[in-house]
């Protein structure tokens, strides 16, 4: 999947927000990874594993999906004898996160509006 495929443009004003949701980003763990990487600028594998309460293997799978979509960059290195893996958000990843958060807010607003109309 390309970075463009991972970051579709914003939906047309009349379109339902769900139609613009990207499966790569719209997944709880992957959204968490993008959020942490965005706030942290750079985040280590172990920190992600602890915060998201995942096993190493599970986290690796999600990281591979995001890396293939061009949303994150993975850098492996050593600190002393200890191997460390650092994850950074790419510009496409930043855009994808912002769009996902925007769509979630739109979706919540849409659900609340529909709910209010049904209550009448």
């Amino acid at each position, binding site marked *: 999947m390309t970075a463009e495929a991972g970051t579709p443009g914003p939906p047309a004003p009349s379109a*339902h927000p*769900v139609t613009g*949701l990207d*499966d790569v980003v*719209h*997944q*709880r763990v992957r*959204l*968490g990874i993008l*959020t*942490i990487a*965005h*706030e*942290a*600028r*750079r*985040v*280590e*594998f*172990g*920190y*992600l594993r602890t*915060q998201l309460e995942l096993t190493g293997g599970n986290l690796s799978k999600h990281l591979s999906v995001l890396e293939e979509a061009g949303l994150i960059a993975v850098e492996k290195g050593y600190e002393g004898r200890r191997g460390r893996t650092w994850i*950074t958000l790419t510009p496409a990843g930043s855009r994808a996160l912002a769009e996902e*958060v925007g769509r*979630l*807010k739109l*979706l*919540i607003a*849409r*659900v609340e509006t*529909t*709910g209010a109309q*049904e209550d009448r």
Partner: protein
Amino acid sequence: MTTDSVPVGGDPRRLLSDVRALAYRVRLDQRVTWVALLVLAAVTLAAIPIDWVSLDADCGRVFAAGGTECHVRRLGLAFYWPPALLLAYTAIAVYAVRVARVRGLGARVMPYVLTGAALTVLSATAWLLVRVYLDSHPPFTLPYWGLVLDRLIGPAGTIGVALLVLAWLERHPALLVFTLGYLAVVLVPIDFGLHPQWGYLTDFLAPQIVNGAVLLLGAVGFAVARRRHR
């Protein structure tokens, strides 16, 4: 069930709430507030004896010329504060980067450090220009707004302005409130009734003790709050 069914990723409210909670957690782990305040308090308090010793008052020349205001130079503003503050900001940056790295995060303190360093250089340059001007002009009393501006571009004022940047970077409302209080103390200034009668050369003493004490109390307060939060 409404036409707006919940998407496969989960309840959007819960997803958004998770995003906010994770972002907040990361910011908490990146914060170095109490260390920054402690370092700046140490620099401020260590400046007291240095400012006192390096104070240069030229009253004779002024009185001989019929003037009533002494020409006082705080040489520490040129020789102590700029290197001390630059060193302090470097120490804060090194600490922040190391701590963040150990925790497995990137640091977000660099804009604060760069702002602090730039303001320090600006403050020292302003002091130098004012000295050059005063050396060739008779002393005069500054209007109130001039005094406020003088305090704002002084070392204590630049510490406060840089702390505003830190509060924004760390998205830290408590630090913002603390910094606004600190800036009020610096700019007004509040001396809490401390008026040592040791001559005009000690006029700076009470505000400087108060500024240092406020920073120190802030450091202790934020350290305690952090410990409780963990």
